[in-house]
């Protein structure tokens, strides 16, 4: 029954997309790209022994990009009534006429559409259809109960279960047709404790997977969330110092994603990248190898094609410290006269080292372990960064002082060249599958 419904709705979306494409053409558009998205999600927050929030969402939208006489515009609506859509498309075409011609704005070369991965990426979990509201409440409740009364300092526990299901249909008037369906399941908790003075140290762990069976067990999540909160008790800052920085695997994406902005076609073409002209040069220590791999089965960043419709393929980003590829979309590729790679990261996979985070930590005489970033920013034009951190002071291989209110500052060129060890412990419930990373000589400011 559900399968029937699904197929019907898929067909409806495709029909609507073709209608919109045809109508846009009739109104004078040379080309168009249509996306129709549908998403349903349910979230449960459980707190204080009862359901705190129960939310159900269901949304539909249509996005159309118009290419007309060298001019371009994009339009989004969630009002999918035929009468509204006609007016919507007329308005879209009308607006486009008033813009200026940009010779680089055109649909991608259809050759880029070819060669989509043939394997089943398993982005959708059929189990989704088997869950009812009570099951969802039970998952959140169970996690809550596993933390309750585990520490006398607990003020509040909030356990969350959330899932969503999306379907999208993409159509480009030069021969692209694609559809996607996926699911995600999120389970996690936040715990607040009574700390010194008025402080309420807190910690959380949230996990997201495409298939429900891949979520960590509730008792594992419960322990980790509580441990995070317990670790936050008594945090303080220590003297400013230049010491090795060990970044735990789950936290490392918070540092590395800032690097990706400088690798984008936009940043390069707009002269906002410190990595301009660095292709095939050493930008990091030999220990750093990163591959963009969109075809990991059940991967959170996995996909069959990207935003331009380019068929997904694996791309080396950094190989033994050498920058091998930028993230170039079709538009900026044309402007830069470079071949497009892809406009955005999918899954990032690292070449692994030999030891895990605990083993690396045990060997450090004096270092700072970063377990969270808070605020701060990076300047993609210069590569400078300044970020707030929490974590631990490591002395003789032991975690001695829990830290907060400290910053790290530096430049990505120096930082990446000072990468001295990569762990063997990638965090796989993330699209950026970072292992533990150890950097030498990082400037920490505190007291």
């Amino acid at each position, binding site marked *: 029954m559900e399968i029937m419904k699904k197929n019907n709705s898929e067909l409806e979306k495709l029909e609507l997309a073709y209608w919109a494409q045809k109508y846009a053409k009739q109104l004078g558009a040379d080309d168009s790209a249509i996306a129709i998205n549908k998403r349903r999600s349910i979230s449960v927050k459980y*707190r204080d022994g009862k*359901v*705190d*929030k*129960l*939310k159900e*969402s*269901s949304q*539909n939208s249509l996005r159309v990009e118009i290419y007309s006489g060298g*001019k*371009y*515009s*994009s*339009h989004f*609506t*969630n*009002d999918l009534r035929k009468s*509204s859509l*006609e*007016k919507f498309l*007329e*308005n879209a075409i*009308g*607006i486009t006429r*008033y*813009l*200026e*011609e940009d010779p680089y*704005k055109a649909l991608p070369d259809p050759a880029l559409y070819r060669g989509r991965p043939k394997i089943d990426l398993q982005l959708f979990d059929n189990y989704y259809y088997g869950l009812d509201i009570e099951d969802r409440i039970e998952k959140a409740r169970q996690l809550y109960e596993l933390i309750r009364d585990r520490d006398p300092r607990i*003020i509040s526990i909030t356990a969350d279960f959330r899932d969503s299901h999306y379907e999208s249909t993409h159509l480009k008037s030069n021969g692209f047709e694609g559809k996607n369906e996926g699911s995600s399941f999120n389970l996690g908790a936040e715990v*607040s404790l009574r*700390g010194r003075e*008025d402080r*309420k*140290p*807190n910690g959380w762990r949230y996990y997201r997977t495409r298939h429900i069976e891949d979520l960590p067990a509730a008792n594992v999540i419960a322990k980790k969330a509580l441990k995070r909160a317990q670790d*936050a008790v008594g*945090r303080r800052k220590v003297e*400013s110092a230049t010491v090795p920085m060990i970044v735990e695997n789950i936290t490392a994406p918070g540092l590395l994603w800032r690097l990706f902005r400088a690798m984008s076609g936009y940043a390069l073409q707009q*002269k*906002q990248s410190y990595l301009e002209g660095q292709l095939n040069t050493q930008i990091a220590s030999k220990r750093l190898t990163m591959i963009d791999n969109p075809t990991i089965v059940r991967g959170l960043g996995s996909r069959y094609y990207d935003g331009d419709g380019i068929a997904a393929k694996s791309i080396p980003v950094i190989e033994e410290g050498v920058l091998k590829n930028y993230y170039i979309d079709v538009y900026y590729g044309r*402007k830069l006269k470079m071949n497009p790679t892809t406009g955005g990261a999918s899954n990032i996979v690292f070449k692994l080292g030999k030891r895990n985070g605990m083993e690396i930590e045990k060997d450090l005489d004096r270092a700072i372990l970063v377990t969270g970033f*808070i*605020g*701060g920013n990076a*300047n993609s*034009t*210069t590569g400078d*960064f*300044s970020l*707030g951190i*929490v974590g631990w002071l490591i002395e003789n291989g032991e975690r001695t002082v829990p830290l*907060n209110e*400290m*910053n790290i*500052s530096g430049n990505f060129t120096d930082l990446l060249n000072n990468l001295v060890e990569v762990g063997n412990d990638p965090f796989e419930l993330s699209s950026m599958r970072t292992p533990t990373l150890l950097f030498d000589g990082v*400037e920490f*400011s*505190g*007291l």
Partner: protein
Amino acid sequence: MRNISRREFVKITGSTFALASVPGFMRGFLTNSEKETANMIYFERFGMDEEIIRKILMEALDRGGDYADLFFQHKLSNSIRLEDNIVNSASTNIMLGVGIRVLNGNQTGYSYTEDLSLESMIGAARTAANISRGGKTAPPQEFRTRELPNYYTTEIPWEEVGIDRRVNILKSVNEEVFSLDSRIIKANVYFSDDENYILIATSEGKISTDYQPMFRISASCTAEQGDRRETNWFNYSARDDIHFLTPERLAHLPREAVRRTVALFEAKPSPAGELPVVLKAGSSGILLHEAIGHGMEADFNRIGTSIYAEKLNKKVAADFISIVDSGTNPNVRGSINVDDEGIPGQETYLVEKGVLRSYMHDRISAKHYGVKLTGNGRRQSFKHFPMPRMRNTYMLNGPHTFEEVIASVKYGILADQFTNGQVNIGPGDFTFYVKSGALIENGKITAPIKDVNIIGNGPEVLERVIMVANDMEMAKGGWTCGKNGQSVPVSMGIPSVLVSSVTVGGRM
């Protein structure tokens, strides 16, 4: 006067902005004398009447919730962008729907639909009603419309400002950027506007409507000097119409973007460690937003997880410090005539003469504390339930002057421009990122500095504000606050203040 019976305008949501300039109509939506007319316009926009609203509320309360509300929204957004000297893209966004909320004690059931058919709305109401498991609660017998003041009077709706006019504005700003300094190698100019129409109906029988305009214009540029490059920007945002963009402001925008960018060539890295920091009047109000604002949102206090949970009516700052969160500042980005729970916009003293006076409340927290609502119940859209959120958060003038503040610092930094901030409300750790500022040495402003994060503890830093000048200014740019996955427009302001010591993330 607007022709209010223009059905096409109301029912068909396909248009966002006028293609070519047409003469602006005087706008009289929200004056008291036209209240009834205004209601009709909103009812018609959503195809609703009191009977339909009653039916949906009846369904929402069918399982015994204490309270229910409907939040109808129709939002039209436009943006237009200039890059590499070409106005090369525009985008529009239409959002229409209703969010249905049911409260049972402090439990929330929420659902929404984008389809405003009775069937679909009844379905959403049933889903939201699931939070409660009791017998029926009766819906209101009659509705009364709230009379609201108007804090953002406008004359020309954005949908009547032709796209040709916007194209011209972008081109003239771009030309000005390049003419001001030969070191400029790239410029981007961006213009966006929103028109947000909302109708809120509550099970207490109150109906409120509002028209919330907003725009933002920004110019960013990259300059090159020798082998160095720097990027910076300036922007304006307000709940206002095209009249805001006077020739003076349109001249200031590119000038300020260029000045800020080329100034970075002179800048050095900031020193590191605990230092005195002077926050210059204006967008330094980000300090208040992060260090105290979020911690004063009553949801975190209600459940005891905010560092401010036990501080009500206690001294938290010097006597000369008063901090306000207000929805009533004329045409300011965070102002609201009514919050998203139907409570009129108002001014709330968070700190009065150094004493913590009030949290910012939504309906759930106000009931918990047994206090009056403060009009802080805000949400991103009909797809989200409301929470306590800030509006315009600012500090009132103090007894010192800017010159006295600077003269008092032997060695420290002056922070001037900011990009972002963050706070962890439980422990009170907060940060904000300084894009540009200057070193202060022996009471004098010396070398410029850039790109540095400042980190501290909210209540501690508030206690360390030891001087407040008399030059209070509101931020000019477009700040957006994110909380639990929801974004809302806010503003902030502050006079120049001295924080005696806070950790600066500079270079050693």
